[in-house]
């Protein structure tokens, strides 16, 4: 599971960033990037199938839970390897690692619920329109990372 973005719909309002920050105690797990002054793309955690952040973690703080890449704060030492191992630059380490948890415990990710332009959706939802791409789209074929 991951958050999908329809880039043709994204209006670069950064509501996803502010909403994410609001529900995660001030830390924000999505970044909106602007391309050529004519498009914007929010970059989210892909919750990769073979996640390199999991491979990089020595203590099992990152692990697969269903199709989600989950994070156990108790096991994190803040070494920073996961941040350097993420191909999309979307895992941070301050004192400890911080990453998208798909708003665990909420009915749907907050960024999806709040998106004013209706540009975001989560896996498993009926896609209401064509042309959706996986969040920022996986870098390599098949989205295995």
């Amino acid at each position: 599971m991951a958050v999908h973005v329809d880039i043709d719909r994204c209006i670069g309002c950064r509501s996803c960033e502010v909403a994410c920050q609001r529900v995660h105690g001030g830390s924000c797990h999505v970044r909106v990037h602007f391309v050529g002054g004519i498009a914007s793309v929010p970059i989210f955690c892909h919750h990769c199938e073979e996640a390199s952040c999991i491979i990089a973690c020595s203590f099992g703080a990152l692990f697969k839970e269903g199709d989600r890449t989950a994070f156990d704060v108790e096991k994190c030492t803040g070494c920073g390897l996961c941040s350097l191992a993420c191909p999309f630059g979307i895992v941070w380490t301050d004192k400890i690692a911080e990453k998208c948890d798909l708003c665990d415990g909420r009915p749907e990710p907050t960024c999806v619920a709040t998106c004013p332009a209706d540009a975001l959706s989560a896996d498993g939802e009926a896609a209401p329109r064509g042309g959706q791409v996986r969040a920022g789209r996986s870098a390599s074929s098949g989205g295995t990372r």
Partner: protein
Amino acid sequence: MTKVLVPTVCPYCGAGCGFFVAVERERAVGIEYMPDHPVGEGALCSKGNASLEILHHQERLTSPLKRKGDGWAKITWDEAIGLVARGIGEAIRDYGPDSVAVLASSKCTNEENYLIQKLARLLSTPHIDNCARLCHAPSVVGLNRTLGAAGMTNPIPDIANSRCIFIIGSNLAENHPVISRWVHRAKDAGAVVIVADPRETHTSWMADIFLQLTPGTDVALLNGIAHQIIEEGLIDRGYIAERTRGFEEFEGSIREFNPERAAEITGVPADDIIRAARAYASSPASTILYSMGITQHTTGTDNVQAVSNLALITGHLGRPGTGVMPLRGQNNVQGACDMGALAEFYPGYRRADDPGTIEHFSAAWSAPALPTGPGLTAAEMIGAAASGDIRAMYIVGEDPANSDPSSLSVKRALEGLDFLVVQDIFMTATAQAADVVLPAAVWAEKEGSFTNTERRVQWSFKAVEPPGSALPDLEIICMVARSLGLDFDYPDAASVLAEINMTVPQYAGITRERLGKEGSLVWPCPSPDHPGTPILHSSGFRLADGRASIVPVPYRPAAEGRSPEYPFLLTTGRVALHHNAGSMTRRSPSLIGRVPDLFAEINPADAEKLGIGDGDLVTVSTERGEAQAAARLTEGMKRGVVFMPFHFPGTNILTSEAADPEARIPEFKVCACRVARRD
């Protein structure tokens, strides 16, 4: 601990999104979305998501204050109200009631605005206005004249039914972000989107046809489009014959205005003007969305009428997917106008210069001596303060020292008043000039109704108590009124709405009880069993003989043009993460953190000639002053034009006071400037 979810209406823009404030132990602890809300469907923009940051903000005003030397002294409400009564009372005694001016607030509820204008008029001063003057006064004047009603003709979700959406002078993707979802839905069904703007904006990203015009040339563009529509026979002859008057004169007035001439003036290629004309006129349902890019001009009223002309000659009114849609800026700027907090209108858009109006409200309010208008407009009040004609002002929830043009002279004028009382939530630049400052509640600390840009009236509930001894505006207004000898006996907002039901025909059926049961109602709603009127003008116009007016609109250039000394045109606007004068968003950590400073957008080719690199500090100067900003080089900016957002104090130091002759709106969108790198 039990968590209570309190339904409220977002305090930022005019879209009127609803959300729940989650309350625990009498504190607002979170936001829950409202998926069945008709406008936002649960969505909120960045500002909505950050709105709770101002609720328990440490800089909130928590006590009445009086000026003491260079600083402030905390005082009791009794002392504060006494000072206000004396300050305003002395001005009335010494200089007459029309030496007093009142600014109502487009952030306050309908009930509060109704009371503020009633207070002003019962004091016998005609000088009551609100910051609609700075955003949509030309819509009020222009659309009342051409269509007989000033407001969006169709609801926001109805945009999805449109097959051609013409967005002119509106960056709705940043300023009303939720409206984008409805534009996208129309596009999914094949709608063509036309965007006219001097700059590439997040809104123009959605465009199929982008018309990048020179600031201040909207009439030329719209007349050129109208010319082409008539030339190609794409007008709706039946509609023109049955529903309008003035077509022949209009047709004659633009006979020479072919796309080539329009192209010469606007800088938009003639082919694009022709494409836009065909797309708009030939679609089964076309709508025009506009905002301050149309209104904030010395030709603001002309621009609005030129927009209305396009809709009338093609018959794109009164049906789903059609319309003329002024997108309004503040959460309750529509309501403040409906309630008569305007220099030229009493409640319900009854003309202030009509003896019938005076008679009507004299009877309704049992007041024999009501003032005949029009009074001074918001900007004129400042001029009159500077000249000494206005001696005392009561400013509620507005910040003219930041939001008005040529703001340095505004500050001087406010400081020169004999008495200024400002009622607000933060110590704004305007409050800094006051003698007495009254601490007010924000939206979630009080209840009342708000009217969004599509005329939808919604009730917003109280979630938490105001901080310290701050009070809801309604209570403060009543205290001020009583101290001045007026009989203001309103225990709550519901009691005021009950009076509004009696005195404002458009709101007659919008009762507190129905707002609770039915959620929201769209005016006009003339009786308690009326369902409301989401689409206006479906069966004629509320004008003499039921016909709308098509009016000739000659092209006039903007007040200021480029000169050797000031070789650029400065235009102003907004960004997604801030709102208006910024008193809230510049204090909101998650918003100011993302856009911390004033910037100036400039085309890279212009910048290169001036030796300016991306991120360089520049000084932008006009005849009125100068401001510092960080240069942002962007290909999306038209050559010879500079853009600055007006959320930071620097921008309006630069802007021009030149105003529309009828609507008196200042020309924020065009002035001549020069730019230099700061070394």
